[in-house]
């Protein structure tokens, strides 16, 4: 209903509700057999679990992005089945920054072009996730630099593409951002 967008709800209440729902979606993507990752034939599975944190950061600001990221990290830690992600420093710490960097990128570019800002923000958030996770993994001794770089390329790039496509689709539909063509393609 259009009504609710003009409603007299406080920012705090709105943010709590959005954060709760987006965390629920994160958990859902991580538990259901579909939607949590996009399998590519090269054997790479691009995960989508960081996307709610990015969307939260774009739509409601850095505190929401931070909290969703933290919950994503906790969830990732709790249900991890590989030693890498059973390390709380690898699973939790980097994830807090996903929503924050996404927010910053979005704010920075919003005035230039909103769709572009959303896309870049998704890319930045994903890169933060990949970069920090691999970085701490290297520091903790789980892998050496060269391996990390390879993973960054083979996993990181598809994940950026996935995040950009999905985030732009969701945010454009929700905020009713017009495409350059101004309408549908039919």
């Amino acid at each position, binding site marked *: 209903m259009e009504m*609710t*967008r003009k*409603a*007299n*709800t*406080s920012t*705090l*209440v*709105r943010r*709590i*509700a*959005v*954060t*709760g*729902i*987006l*965390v*629920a*979606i994160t*958990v*859902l993507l991580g*538990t*259901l*057999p*579909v*939607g949590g990752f*996009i*399998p*590519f*034939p*090269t054997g790479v599975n*691009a995960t*989508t679990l960081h996307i*709610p944190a990015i*969307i939260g950061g774009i*739509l409601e600001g850095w505190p929401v992005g931070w*909290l969703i990221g933290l*919950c994503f990290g906790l969830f990732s830690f*709790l*249900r*991890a*089945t*590989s*030693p890498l992600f*059973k*390390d*709380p*420093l690898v699973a939790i710490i980097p994830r807090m920054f996903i929503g924050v960097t996404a927010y910053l990128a979005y704010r920075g570019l919003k005035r230039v072009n909103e769709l572009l800002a959303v896309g870049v923000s998704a890319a930045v958030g994903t890169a933060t996730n990949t970069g920090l996770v691999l970085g701490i993994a290297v520091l903790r*001794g789980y892998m*050496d630099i060269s391996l990390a770089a390879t993973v960054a390329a083979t996993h990181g790039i*598809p994940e950026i*593409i*996935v995040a950009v*496509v*999905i985030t732009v*689709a*969701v945010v454009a*539909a*929700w905020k009713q951002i017009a495409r350059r063509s101004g309408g549908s393609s039919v």
Partner: protein
Amino acid sequence: MSTFEFLRYATLGQYVPVGSLVHRMDPRFKILAFALVVAAVTFSGTYLANVILLLTVFLLVALSRVSLGQALQGVRPALPVLAFLAVFQVLLPPQTFGGEACNLIWQWGFVELTDCTLRFIVVSTARLIELIVLTTLLTSTTTMAELAYGVEGLLAPFQRMGVPAHEAALTVTIALRFVPTLALQMERIVKAQIARGADFGTAGRFRFVKTTRRLLPLLVPLFLAGLRRSENLALAMEARGYTGGKGRTRRVKLRARPADYLALAAAAAFCIAMLNVDFATLGRALAAWLGQF
């Protein structure tokens, strides 16, 4: 996907109401104790330490009156990963951990197995099992509502410093409450889109964008529905007078009993011990002593 039934997947860590000592713990103390034991596990890299940890974990399983089968349930999916990682580690050029010298144990062609690598593999496996079982224990002995109360209770002292304890706990509550609901909605969406001809398969080797776009009919409605619900939720919360954690009371007051303090103290002591005892030396001495027989 001819049987959908997403609800099957959406129940996190089956709560089993058995009523053991661990079940009855004040959730705040339970979470803290859990965190302490996890810390102990995370920073223990020796054989001996992990033997002790494994025994401790299984002791806790017994205390919680959770069946061993259920406790180990989470480990099954991890086994293939572990096997793969073990092989992977062996194939890598030998690494030193912590700068100590490594001795070659076994060699086959170009594959070298050092004692450092072996320890890493064994210890990683042990740690993983310990963490998985601990996590399962936590979720099996605590209801979602208790978890939220526990998180709120733990953060409450920091309210003065600006940490929004109740707000964070409410977020957790909302998230937990909506997982099954959104799972059911997701199922409807998937069915509707499949009926419209959606195909969620891959589009080809490097067609990243195209493959991703195939999942849009699934993911976009999920987010949109979630965002719409959050708007309704915000309205309902405002209408019932929510203005933040200040001035709120709670229906249920958590009351810590002496047993809770004891358990926490035990966990703390355990953690400190595990992190400070020089298990490496101790282990070697023990091995030497056992070697006599």
